């Protein structure tokens, strides 16, 4: 079973919700995950943020859903850390 352990997203979002409300809203949808947001660039109405999400099994689709519901859009996946489970040995 393949699990996403860490993902770094480049996201364009409106100023509102602010960084704290934005990450809190995402964290509510992905229990057990650790989220870090860094503002990379600011514009008049928007800001580009770097979102780092870490966890045992990061639910990517739930994250994209909540980001778009908050008015944000994912520009790129900048880094990803994926792990496959231990190899199952077939009984002889």
């Amino acid at each position, binding site marked *: 079973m393949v699990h996403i352990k860490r993902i770094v997203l480049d996201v364009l979002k*409106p100023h509102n919700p602010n960084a704290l*409300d934005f990450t809190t809203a995402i964290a509510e949808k992905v229990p057990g995950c650790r989220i870090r947001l860094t503002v990379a660039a600011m514009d008049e109405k928007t800001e580009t943020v770097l979102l780092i999400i870490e966890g045992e099994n990061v639910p990517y689709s739930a994250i994209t859903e909540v980001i*778009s519901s908050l*008015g944000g859009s994912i520009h790129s996946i900048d880094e990803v850390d994926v792990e496959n489970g231990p190899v199952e040995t077939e009984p002889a």
Partner: protein
Amino acid sequence: MASMIAELTRLLTLTRSHVIARRYFVVNGFDGALTMLGLLVGFYVSDEARLPVVINACLGVAIALGMSGVSSAYISEVAEKQRELRELEKAMVADLGQSAHARAARLLPVFIAGVNGVAPLAIALVILMPLYAAPLFEPLSLHPLVSAFGLALIMIFLLGVYLGRISHTFWLWAGLRTLLIAAATTGLIFTLSPG
């Protein structure tokens, strides 16, 4: 119901519209209170107005203020929120139709219009209570118009106190300032009234 209130609170916070709703409440509430005060003083100066006439006239004005508040705020807020959404969509280069911002643009004008309409209507109805309850005031030999006038002053003072709390100024001074406006209005009506 609880989830609807939570959603409304979230959208108000997201768009910072709670400030607009609060401003509408104070502005139109003050409008309602001062209009009722003016009508009551006008009827008091006229001397011969019967109570049912006073009640019907005041009620008519209160309802008109409420309807005017709802319709004017709705029309202007829909236009403002739609413009804000279009500008945000332009900046994001994306369709935000499914986002919380689009939900806010649809729902908040209704809420703000409600606040703008209910504020003057509710305050006016509170001020009119002594007129409805006139038989109860008879044993106290209180003139219903004077009682309603007193209640109007109290409501205007409370709105001032509320404004004082918002602006973090001394509540008594803020309340007295709005009372001063009420006193000036009353004085003007007495001065300009032909008698």
